[in-house]
């Protein structure tokens, strides 16, 4: 019945939808910005109530936050446990001080020295971060720790430049920033700026991609997110922030020696983020403020301050993994309707998903792959034609999912070729599949639990964005256009899969069946030429399976070729144009549903009668 709707109606509906989203977007932006503006107002009011001491503490908070706002993207968003970031603070502090003092070249004005320090910090941010591109978490934590030690050692040894153990005077800022409050306002200003930068990244497709890499790395790769590029971009940013913070820190301290850069300070930065909550900006900001002020108001406990940080860290990990951000997230405590149903509207696809040109066919020839001595796939031929639904069935361990993984590049086949139209599809390299128009879902849904449903779907369109990282960083118009486009498309696709009512709900609050449809919506964000579905009906009710079938048919009707791995024989025989039956990594049978249904071996071995 939905098929009957005139397409012009749909276009109009889509247009008004976009308009609504834009207005909605502004309101959302304001709601998101309000707490930060509130904090800024509070910061600007501090001089009315405080003396020079509070100016100092306030300045310290602002400076630490400049560092943490950048580090937050590394730790809170990308999930890399950089424990030794005090190293970059040290680097920035010394670079600024040495440049201003003129120890290696003619003295540089402090406002020129800070940007130079930022560049140096950015470069070293990447160098320190390099191990994270290849290594496991603990290794990275250790290497940042080791780096923190040697930076101090070098500061000690390079006496002619750094002053060695006696240190070097911090830079002095010109008027009006040379008073306690003048400097305070400068630091608050810079902190506000870095907050804005990090919020821009966090709320762009780059921020979502970071979280996706953190929580669903495999799915992120399938959507075409390049982890190294992403990480290098934020290591540059975090390094620059840390180095600028270092320059300001040196000025605040008036004098820096290597022993000013304690491991405790590193722990403070790190724990502030975890107390604040991963994937949040306001949380870590509050965390930084609390941890800076805690030792001041709990002076008698000074000796135990590291111990208290440690207890706090343990409690956070064990009891409150979401941190402050989770406490403040009132929306996620509102109960969801319990009797909600997924009602997809496949007809709406036409206005949203670009019709596939339909000139490509995905062809596998002689693909072979073994794990140890086990041949997982052994000489597999498979063709998926545009606009066709190709079913892949077989008993457990017959190589169905492995085939999907070979196509998506998670496994590099040991033999055989894959071609997309006339082009060879390189083995491995999963992050390149999205650009080839291949999207997929997973046997166990891989979504980012801490992100909203809408954000999860938007992740699917990451490669569709046009704005560069710098444009996103500075919130330039092209990024805003990307965001509007991605949000509108994601909302519309949520409408298609019947989940638009849950767009702003955290994904980890959803039911299993809903996650399956979210994965499909995410995959559709790519306007895929080929869609690989790995048991999409598993765990779905009968009604839901029927709706899923309609949805899959509608997608293939737009020219997308679909490879469907499934155990529900009814679904397969209902909607597939072609079926391949695998057994022990080999093709048992291939043909139309009608042929397979009467294939003797299949019937006896698999269909059970």
């Amino acid at each position, binding site marked *: 019945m939905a098929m009957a709707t005139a397409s012009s109606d749909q276009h109009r509906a889509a247009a008004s939808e976009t308009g609504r989203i834009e207005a909605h977007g502004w309101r959302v932006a304001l709601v998101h910005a309000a707490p930060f503006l509130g904090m800024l107002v509070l910061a600007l009011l501090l001089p009315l109530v405080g003396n020079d001491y509070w100016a100092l503490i306030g300045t310290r908070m602002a400076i630490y936050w400049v560092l943490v706002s950048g580090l937050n993207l590394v730790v809170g968003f990308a999930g890399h446990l950089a424990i030794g970031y005090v190293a970059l603070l040290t680097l920035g502090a010394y670079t600024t001080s040495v440049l201003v003092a003129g120890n290696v070249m003619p003295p540089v004005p402090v406002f020129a020295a800070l940007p130079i320090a930022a560049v140096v910090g950015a470069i070293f941010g990447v160098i320190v971060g390099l191990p994270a591109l290849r290594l496991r978490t603990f290794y990275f934590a250790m290497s940042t720790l080791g780096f923190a030690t040697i930076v101090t*050692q070098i500061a000690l040894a390079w006496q002619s430049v750094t002053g060695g153990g006696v240190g070097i005077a911090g830079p002095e800022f010109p008027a009006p920033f040379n008073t306690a409050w003048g400097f305070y306002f400068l630091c608050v200003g810079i902190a506000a700026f870095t907050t804005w930068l990090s919020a821009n990244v966090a709320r762009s497709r780059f921020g979502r991609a970071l979280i996706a890499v953190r929580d669903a790395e495999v799915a992120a790769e399938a959507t075409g997110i390049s982890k190294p590029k992403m990480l290098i971009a934020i290591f540059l940013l975090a390094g620059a922030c840390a180095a600028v913070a270092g320059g300001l820190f040196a000025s605040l301290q008036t004098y820096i020696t290597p022993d000013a850069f304690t491991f405790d300070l590193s722990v403070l930065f790190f724990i502030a983020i975890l107390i604040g909550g991963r994937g949040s900006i306001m949380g870590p900001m509050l965390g930084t403020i609390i941890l800076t002020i805690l030792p001041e108001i709990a002076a008698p406990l000074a000796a135990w301050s590291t111990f208290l940080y440690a207890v706090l860290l343990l409690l956070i990990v064990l009891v409150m993994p979401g941190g402050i951000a989770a406490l403040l997230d009132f929306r996620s405590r509102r109960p969801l309707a319990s009797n909600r149903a997924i009602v997809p509207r496949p007809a709406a696809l036409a206005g949203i998903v670009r019709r596939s040109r339909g000139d490509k066919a995905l062809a596998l020839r002689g693909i072979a792959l073994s794990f140890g001595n086990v041949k997982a796939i052994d000489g597999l031929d498979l063709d998926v034609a545009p606009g066709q639904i190709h079913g892949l069935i077989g008993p457990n361990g017959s190589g169905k999912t492995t085939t999907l993984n070979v196509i998506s590049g998670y496994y590099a086949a040991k033999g055989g070729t894959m071609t997309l139209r006339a082009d060879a599809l390189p083995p491995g390299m999963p992050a390149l599949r999205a650009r080839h128009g291949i999207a997929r879902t997973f046997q166990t849904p891989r979504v980012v639990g801490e992100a909203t449903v809408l954000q999860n779907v938007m992740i699917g369109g990451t490669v569709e964005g046009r704005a560069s990282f710098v444009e996103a960083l500075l919130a330039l118009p092209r990024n805003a256009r990307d965001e509007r486009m991605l949000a509108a498309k994601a909302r519309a696709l949520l409408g298609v899969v019947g989940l638009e009512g849950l767009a702003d709900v955290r994904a980890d609050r959803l039911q299993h069946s809903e996650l399956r449809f979210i994965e499909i919506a995410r995959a559709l964000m790519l306007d895929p030429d080929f869609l690989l579905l790995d048991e999409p009906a598993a765990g779905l009710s009968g009604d839901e399976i029927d709706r899923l079938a309609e949805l899959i048919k509608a997608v293939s009707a737009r020219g997308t070729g679909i490879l469907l791995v499934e155990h529900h024989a009814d679904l397969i025989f209902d909607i597939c144009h072609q079926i391949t039956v695998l057994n022990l990594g080999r093709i048992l049978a291939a043909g139309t549903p009608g042929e397979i249904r009467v294939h003797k071996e299949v019937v006896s071995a698999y269909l059970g009668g």
Partner: protein
Amino acid sequence: MLASIIAAGLASGAIYALVGVTYNTMFSTSRVMSFTAGQLAMLGGVFGSMFTLKLGMPVVAGFLLTLVCCAIIGIITEFIAVRPVLKSLDQHLYVLSTLAVALMIQQVAAIKWGTEPQPFPRLIGLGSGIWDEKFWLPVVACALTILGLEYLYRRTLVGRAFLAIAEDNFAARALGLPERNLRIASYALAGIIGGIAGFSGGELLLAFFANGALLNFYGFVPVALGGLGNNRGAIVGGLALGLFQQAANFLVGGIFSSVAVFTLFIVVLLAAPQGLFGGASARRV
């Protein structure tokens, strides 16, 4: 001169190797790298000095009591910092929880034991010069520990169960192995190995709270060099690190030797992320 560099290098290398084995022992049953490995070795020295010097116990009694205390600390770590985060291993929360416990151990040691290095007793009183017991004790302890572990893993049922769990956790559980008890046992065992490292190296490193952080790093380098979970790799890596460090100390001085060790660490990690001798790796999809 060369002899004394080799003696000191092998001695400190043996301690690093034992700390590396401590890391591996905890890793084998839980897939967790724990920041407490170095702290256990630090405690081996501190407890040893406390029991034998402060409380005047006989060396053997002090040694056994030290091992018991370290084993208990190991078990406590398992209970409060490892078990609660095992179900979400992929979030790497263990890095944070074990770091928290390590910081707590270090801070309590600093406040209760003192921030100055304190003496460790002469255990046997054998040898002098480069044959001084403080140099050969850690090496002997390391060798005996390895022999003991080999015996445990190859000749005893419990040891084989350890290996089975290290090889394939799910399969081992499916076979009905008491996975949880074995994990607790492995943390106690790690505590004991850490304690042996600290006790045998006590004369060399003294009873000093800051040894924990130091050994954490220097004990991890052999693990990174030798490959995660690979004890033989850790031993070779540890001894190599000790010799390298002493040679660097001698050739470029105290300040740059730590820079040299760190550079070696990063270069090896980037060139061979699985370590030079290979280690455990996991399937992703």
